[in-house]
């Protein structure tokens, strides 16, 4: 069966894992919606790279914590319905749990978990109609493994993993797969303060991963070849949680 017409949306794709995932999916022939919240320049650079490589890309601004922005991001457009959704936009606001303020808690849950739910809810009806869809949620090894100072982040990412499994079984019979990737320490703006030193020594691979290594996992889960893989979490952490 030919792949249906549609596009891919990667939330938070102006840099880091999201940018690498956007480039990888574009290389697989998907027209890309490159989403950013504040880094317009980064998003435009990603789109320019995609176009320079012969792909097509649209830059779309929107804060995924805003429900109406999520609705707009998922509207079917000239590039068709969103048939590949990568819920990547994320943030961390660390602190020991007795010191996490309500706002720190809520913001992390809103961006990392609630936005994943809302974007998925918005995307699924079109995917069900197309009998094809790929949803890849970016979780974290911290969703299954403790990391002091990240209780809010851990809760959001564990939530993403549970959400992924449940939605996967709901829609599996329609050719729609829902999976997660769980990156360990990857060199991005989100991890630059915590990288290096003892932490790196704890990684069996003895190095930090690259955004491209995480994006390769997303690309596989979004591919037609991964049609029988659903409800799973693919860990990409250099052996950290082995």
């Amino acid at each position, binding site marked *: 069966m030919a792949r249906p017409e549609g596009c891919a949306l990667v939330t938070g794709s102006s840099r880091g894992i999201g940018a690498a995932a956007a480039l990888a999916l574009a290389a697989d022939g998907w027209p890309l919606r490159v989403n950013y919240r504040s880094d317009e320049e980064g998003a435009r650079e990603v789109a320019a790279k995609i176009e320079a490589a012969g792909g097509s890309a649209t830059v779309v601004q929107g804060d995924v914590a805003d429900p109406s922005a999520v609705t707009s991001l998922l509207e079917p457009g000239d590039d068709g319905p969103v048939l590949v959704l990568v819920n990547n936009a994320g943030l961390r606001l660390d602190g020991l749990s007795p010191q996490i303020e309500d706002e720190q808690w809520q913001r992390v849950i809103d961006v990392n978990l609630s936005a994943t739910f809302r974007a998925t809810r918005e995307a*699924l*009806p*079109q995917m*069900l*109609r197309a009998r094809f869809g790929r949803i890849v949620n970016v979780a974290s090894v911290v969703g299954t493994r403790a990391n002091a100072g990240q209780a809010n982040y851990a809760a959001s990412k564990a939530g993403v993993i549970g959400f992924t499994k449940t939605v996967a079984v*709901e*829609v599996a*019979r*329609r050719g729609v797969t829902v999976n997660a990737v769980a990156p360990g320490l990857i060199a991005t703006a989100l991890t630059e303060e915590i990288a290096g030193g003892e932490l790196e020594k704890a990684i069996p691979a003895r190095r930090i991963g690259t955004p491209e290594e995480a994006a390769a996992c997303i690309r596989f889960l979004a591919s037609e070849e991964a049609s029988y893989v659903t409800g799973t979490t693919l860990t990409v952490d250099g052996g950290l949680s082995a």
Partner: protein
Amino acid sequence: MPTDVSTENVEKTIYDGLVELGTERGELSREATLEDLDIDSLDLVELAQIVEDEFGVELKGDDVKDVKTVGEVIDLVVSKSG
């Protein structure tokens, strides 16, 4: 441009949608129950999308949870458009 939400148009769209979801056309009637037609909750999500694409009428989970027959689905869409 959404199609005019007359009972006739809605009935046609719902019937076509149910056929697309695997129901035999000969089994369709207003009285037929969704259960007898083997239409499950996921099929209803799809049917809601078909209705929204055609008429611009949004059916939420709460709207359809008590619907049992094809006729009730048709009446619901018509009433939601008003």
